[in-house]
């Protein structure tokens, strides 16, 4: 079970897209996992043949749990998993890296999925299955009395407690509540750990709007380009020039990214937000950028985003669209270090060539991480973006 965000603890397997005997290669979508941020397609980072699907549909698995066993070319299958004596049979909930399960038995005679050693019986000793069930039902394990060997809390104790009317479990959270929780966790962490600073500039986007009017005139809808695609393209170019805006801050250090994976914030109806990344945005021309964004928005609505898109963004662009407020000061998505907030275009009196004329302008607010950059770099990013807005045909 891969981590699909710093705050993810577990995911529920909802669909297998492979079966034993299939050949898989790096980047293939192999499964769908339900997370707090909706259903996400999981890609594989191995090559080989599917030997076994270890996880069952519907299983809620902690990050790091083995999902499947993939054998490389010529690799012998591992010894069959032995049921570990003290723990109940929920072996799929065992945290173990998939790669370890791939090791041939000669090199590592360990069983594929050893269950964790049962904790020594004590006041709160609890079987793994009972712990998972208690977590699902929202039951505080310290309130339970164990009836298993040595007083261990077993599944029946949790279920028994859940059936008592006064200990009725809370209703499972709706997907919307789950998403709010995920956003709350990520945004709180961001505001508590990232020393944000902000620079703003109001930018004349009339050249871009005029350019698009000409470009889109007479084009069928499927080939039209939106202002949002110009923003993403310009932000990607600016990020590629100002390296301190593009990358990840992890383990106390900033790692700039060679490629620009442009996170595109998509508001979901009824609340909630996802920001899947348009991978390697610098390699795309304007039409490809637009096509990529349409695809991302469509899949965000249908709950078909990929794990890499959820975790590999290097900078986020959040645009309020074509109507609405004129400025937005955004919160950076950890572990990224910058977010470009763009208000909706507004017609304002503007000085062009010494004369006051009505122009469409947009206010850009760059949120940046002060651990990584200072005002000078942020100002340079904005200047790059603004320059590109004067020559949209070059994008």
């Amino acid at each position, binding site marked *: 079970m891969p981590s699909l965000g710093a705050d993810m603890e577990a995911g529920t397997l909802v669909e297998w897209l492979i079966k034993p005997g299939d050949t898989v290669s790096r980047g293939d979508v192999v499964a769908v996992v339900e997370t707090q941020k909706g259903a996400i397609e999981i890609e594989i980072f191995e090559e080989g043949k599917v030997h076994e699907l270890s996880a069952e549909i519907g299983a809620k698995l902690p990050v790091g749990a083995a999902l499947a066993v993939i054998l490389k070319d010529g690799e012998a299958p591992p010894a069959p998993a032995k049921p570990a004596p003290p723990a109940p049979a929920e072996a799929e909930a065992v945290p173990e890296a998939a790669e370890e399960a791939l090791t041939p038995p000669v090199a590592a005679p360990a069983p594929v999925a050893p269950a964790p050693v049962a904790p020594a019986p004590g006041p709160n000793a609890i079987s793994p299955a009972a712990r998972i069930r208690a977590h699902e039902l929202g039951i505080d394990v310290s309130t339970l009395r164990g009836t298993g060997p040595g007083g261990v809390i077993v599944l029946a104790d949790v279920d028994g407690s859940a059936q008592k009317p006064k200990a009725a479990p809370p209703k499972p959270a709706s997907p919307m509540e789950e998403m709010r929780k995920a956003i709350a966790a990520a945004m709180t962490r961001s505001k508590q750990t990232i020393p944000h600073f902000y620079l703003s500039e109001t930018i004349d986007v009339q050249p871009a709007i005029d350019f698009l*009017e000409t470009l*889109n*005139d007479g084009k*069928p*809808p*499927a080939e*039209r380009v*939106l*202002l*949002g695609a110009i923003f993403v393209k310009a932000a990607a170019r600016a990020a590629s020039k100002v390296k301190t805006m593009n990358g990840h801050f992890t383990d106390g250090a900033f790692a700039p990214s060679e490629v620009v994976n442009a996170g595109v914030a*998509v*508001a*979901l*109806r*009824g609340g909630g937000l996802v920001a899947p990344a348009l991978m390697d945005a610098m390699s795309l021309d304007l039409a490809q950028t637009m096509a990529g*964004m*349409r695809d991302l*928005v*469509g899949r965000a*609505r*249908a709950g078909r985003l990929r794990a890499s898109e959820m975790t590999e963004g290097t900078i986020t662009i959040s645009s309020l*669209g*074509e*109507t609405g407020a004129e400025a937005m000061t955004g919160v950076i998505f950890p572990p990224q270090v910058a977010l470009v907030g763009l208000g909706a275009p507004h017609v304002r009196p503007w000085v062009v060539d010494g004369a006051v004329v009505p122009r469409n302008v947009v206010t850009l607010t760059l949120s940046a991480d002060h651990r990584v950059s200072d005002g000078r770099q942020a100002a340079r990013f904005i200047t790059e973006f603004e320059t590109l807005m004067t020559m949209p045909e070059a994008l």
Partner: protein
Amino acid sequence: MTKDEIRAAFLEELSRVAPDIDPATVGDDDHIQDDLELDSMDVLNLVAALHERLGVNIPERSYPEIATPALAVVYLDAALKSAAM
């Protein structure tokens, strides 16, 4: 195509673009952006879907004329009739 058929086609494409909207709950005067919260990308996807299904190429300046199901039926009906003439 009758107006009822046009309305049904519009709602079907709308719910395809925005799978979380139940077409049965959409009112004739619901604004696709203000009430149904379609963003500009969704609107473009809807216009593209209508183009494919009905053959009506809606230019950007006419987007306000399909902003509600009621408006869209009038606009698409006129466009289909003028194409047939």
